[in-house]
């Protein structure tokens, strides 16, 4: 993985909510096909950093470039940015009044203006990809949490994004359902998708990450391959990992 073809680039990004400094000079580069995993305690700024990439939060200072879109540009085409970026949330956010298939075809039909038939074909393909081919006509409330989250991933994939963002997508799921969602994400990573993942699943993070980013207090404290978790260099990461270990053995 080289830095010469960056899909996502954050340079010295600052962001405050009122008096609370959430991002304090964050820099991060994600190359095409790379999987970046951001870990850290709650409140360390990792979700905010992710949300800034899709401009769900507007930054105070610094620069973000995503798929060639300069996010601080006054003339930024927000809808074009969002067609290039797929995002999956902790709370799924499927549209409850639409079936899974309708959830998936809504944006391709109304935003990208593809034909209904073509959108349905794409829907079938992405549903197969996440293992939900037989759930196309179900409503979200008829699905388990893990199935809903996989449907939400499929909905994002149907827009054929250049980068996928995952914001603690398994935090609301039990271990079994978590595993089925993580499997889908691993398949996706293996298929060459550029991904930025915020997660609390440490062994998953280590497995999947080309680049692991540890955030603490709104800053990137450590970054490197997944194995940095085995040999933390900073006291903060060491402490974070020991908490994780305790949590795992409790």
């Amino acid at each position, binding site marked *: 993985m080289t830095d010469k073809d960056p899909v996502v680039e954050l340079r010295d990004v600052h962001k405050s909510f009122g008096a609370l400094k959430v991002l304090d000079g964050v820099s991060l580069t994600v190359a095409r096909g790379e999987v970046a995993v951001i870990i850290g305690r709650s409140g360390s700024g990792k979700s905010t950093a992710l949300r800034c990439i*899709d401009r769900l939060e507007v930054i105070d200072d610094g620069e973000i470039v995503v798929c060639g879109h300069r996010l601080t540009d006054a003339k930024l085409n927000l809808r074009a940015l*969002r067609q290039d970026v797929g995002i999956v949330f902790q*709370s799924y956010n*499927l*549209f409850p009044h639409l079936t899974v298939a309708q959830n998936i075809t809504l944006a391709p039909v*109304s*935003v990208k203006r593809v034909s209904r038939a073509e959108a349905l074909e794409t829907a079938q393909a992405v549903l197969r990809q996440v293992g939900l081919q037989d759930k196309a006509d179900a409503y979200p*409330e*008829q699905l388990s949490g893990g199935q809903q989250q996989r449907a939400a991933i499929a909905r994002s994939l149907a827009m054929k994004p250049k980068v996928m963002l995952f914001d603690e997508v398994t935090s609301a799921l039990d271990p079994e359902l978590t595993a089925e969602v993580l499997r889908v994400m691993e398949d996706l990573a293996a298929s060459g998708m550029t991904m930025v993942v915020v997660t609390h699943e440490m062994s998953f993070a280590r497995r999947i990450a080309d680049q692991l980013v540890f955030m603490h207090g709104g800053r990137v404290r450590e970054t490197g391959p997944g194995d940095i978790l085995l040999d933390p260099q900073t006291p903060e990461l060491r402490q974070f990992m020991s908490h994780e270990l305790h949590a795992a053995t409790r």
Partner: protein
Amino acid sequence: MELAGVATVAGFVLGTLCAVGLRSGGGMARLCSIYVEAIRNTPLLVQIFLVYFGLASLGLRLSAFVVAVLALTINVAAYTAEIMRAGLDSIPPGQIEAGECLGLSRVQLYWHVLLLPAMERVYPALASQFVLLMLASSVCSQISAEEMTAVANHVQSETFRPFEAFIVLAGLYIVLSVLMRAVFWLLGLALFPRRRRLGTAL
């Protein structure tokens, strides 16, 4: 009858626009909220007289029917606005975020993510508001719009049997209400396939 029908459709459209206006913030929201509060805090009969005599003093000679439709529309739109606003407010912010992140335009977002699900949620409240409107349309006999109550009045003034005339009228209103609820129920099944499929309210 058609009085209530026209006012229901027009009032729903106007009220929904008003609900969107209420959420828009700024001057538009203030204007909508003044309208809604003004209507919800005055009696329907007074509103009807205001429209009737107001238009007349402006030199507009409209039929009693048109005036009645106007007044009822203005009335029911305010209540619809409140109901739809509640529905729109019940949509979680995450839904809007998800819609935005799929690249939906503002209009698409409002239609697919906000208005349709909101309507699905508040549909029972809307339906009962419209039945109420149909019943309230009886008041329009006061400006001699030709509707059922006015007819009953004619009957009792010619036959001198007011109790019988009005008990028949009451029976007719019950039949109409039941019919109207049935129509709304069928319409709901057609409009909201999820309700039909799952048989649940939400």
